[in-house]
């Protein structure tokens, strides 16, 4: 259920690293907890974000949740498809439902994140 090739935050964001590019989204567990996602507010490209700082907001019909950056970096792109199809976060959270791409500034920060096993344990504890 939890993809093995990603790292996770305790706030239920995931990050995939490819060279110095980090792709960030929220986990299936988070999407399920929020229910039907209706809106995702994302930062402008070029903005620098610190690790664990909020970079956006995700809304369902009756809930709202901040998004926290798993790693520091400059925003190089956002998923424009979410403006028209926010449901991608529910249906394909690790693929088409990705949110931002960051230029990674410090790869060592990845060590501060949860590995898939630890994240699985976190959500099992509820």
């Amino acid at each position, binding site marked *: 259920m939890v993809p093995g090739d990603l790292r996770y935050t305790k706030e239920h964001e995931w990050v995939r690293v490819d060279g110095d590019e980090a792709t960030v989204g929220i986990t299936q567990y988070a999407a399920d907890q929020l229910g039907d996602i*209706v*809106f995702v*507010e994302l930062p402008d490209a070029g903005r620098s974000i610190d690790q664990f700082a909020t970079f956006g907001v995700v*809304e*369902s*019909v*009756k*809930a*709202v949740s901040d998004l926290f950056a798993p790693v520091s970096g400059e925003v190089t792109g956002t998923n424009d498809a979410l403006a028209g199809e926010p449901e991608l976060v529910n249906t394909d959270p690790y693929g088409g439902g990705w949110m931002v791409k960051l230029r990674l500034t410090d790869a060592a920060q990845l060590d501060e994140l949860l590995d898939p096993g630890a994240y699985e344990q976190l959500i099992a504890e509820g």
Partner: protein
Amino acid sequence: MPYGPHAADDRAQMLEAIGISSVDALFEDIPEPLRASPLRLDEPEPELELSARLAALAARNRVDLASFLGAGAYRHWTPATVDQMLLRGEWYTAYTPYQPEVSQGTLQSIYEYQSLLAELTALDVVSASHYDGGAATAEAALMTCRATRRERVLVSRGVHPHYRQTLETYAEGAGLVADEIPLVADGPLAGTTDLAALERMLADPDRRVAGVVAAQPNVLGLLEDMPEIGRLGHAAGALFVSVIEPVSLAVLAPPGEYGADIAAGEGQPLGIPLSYGGPYLGIVACTDALVRQIPGRLVGLTSDLDGRRAFVMTLRAREQDIRREKAASNICTNQALLALAASIYVATIGPHGLRDVAALGAARAAELEAALAAAGAPRAHDGPYLNEFVVRVPDAPVLHARLLDRGVLAGIPTAALLPDEPSLADGLLVCATEVTTAADIDRFASALRLELAGAATGGVR
């Protein structure tokens, strides 16, 4: 208690069920030292006496005078349908439609209001949540700051002073700056927003502007060059807020047509009584692009489980009850009953009726202008106006008081409304609408002629 339902032993029955002997037991958690001193209020007043007291208070107000008051609140004829419908308890004793299954009436009425105002303003999104013209203008200005992430708005001095002052209060709280754009002092454009000054203010690279706010018609009743104000604002990356009067939109170009991003204004002219300033209806409308920034409740069209068309409050996660400190505004109200009044008003008189109301006001105002000029009070400005304008008179505040003694509410002395405009020290802002009669105009002109004749022989001063 006048509206209490309890028969003699109902309270005893409830107390017994709970297992206490006196209701005082339910208040024992209020710490002794903090308990209230006795309420010093009059005895309960039986309804017969209370109704007489209220009628006597109402009678102390003078509403029988020939009135030429405007400046943001307008006398209009309201068809009887409006109040007849408003008096239905299903409307006024319901609350915010949190449970859509038993609130389709309120929800559909708000959706229809949103649609009617979108049509009038030629914009996309309308919120029925705003208190009045002043608060609506302030919220509109804050919207421009959120949308552009800039912290300075420019407000024309042609915007109603109460709106500017309200905006100033809101901006101060939010840590934003509101600078005023001056009016042209003389010449053919006198009394309208100084476009050259606006251009200079927009050019400051260190203090970039989020929004430009101007009114059509402006507070002096004059028509502004709105397309040009919008163009200048947009060229500097700012949004454009048009402060509108809704009846005038039946005949004047709507904000959406001249590039306004937001329209704000006072909905009172749409069938809402003057009531000494409230409750009124703040209008806020915007383009689709700003839908995330507009504060307040929004109603959307959707369907139920059986696929039947129905209405529901939507985009709720923007609001204070969900977003708390991150909400765009603390607004919780929706002015549903007043939005309903506005809708019934528009539906009853229809598009042609609304146009006729605006056109009749313009016609009566032209008659008023001619009569006052003939009596010795010429217009103070050259530019076009719709139904409100300034006339020049000597010693306006004193003259105004004397005209009141003669049964004429001769508009508003501009020195009182706009004390910071020295060029307007000797003016009266007067207004006519479809309810202004030829007899009222005669009464005003005759009284004015007498007073000015008296002044010529030293009477006024």
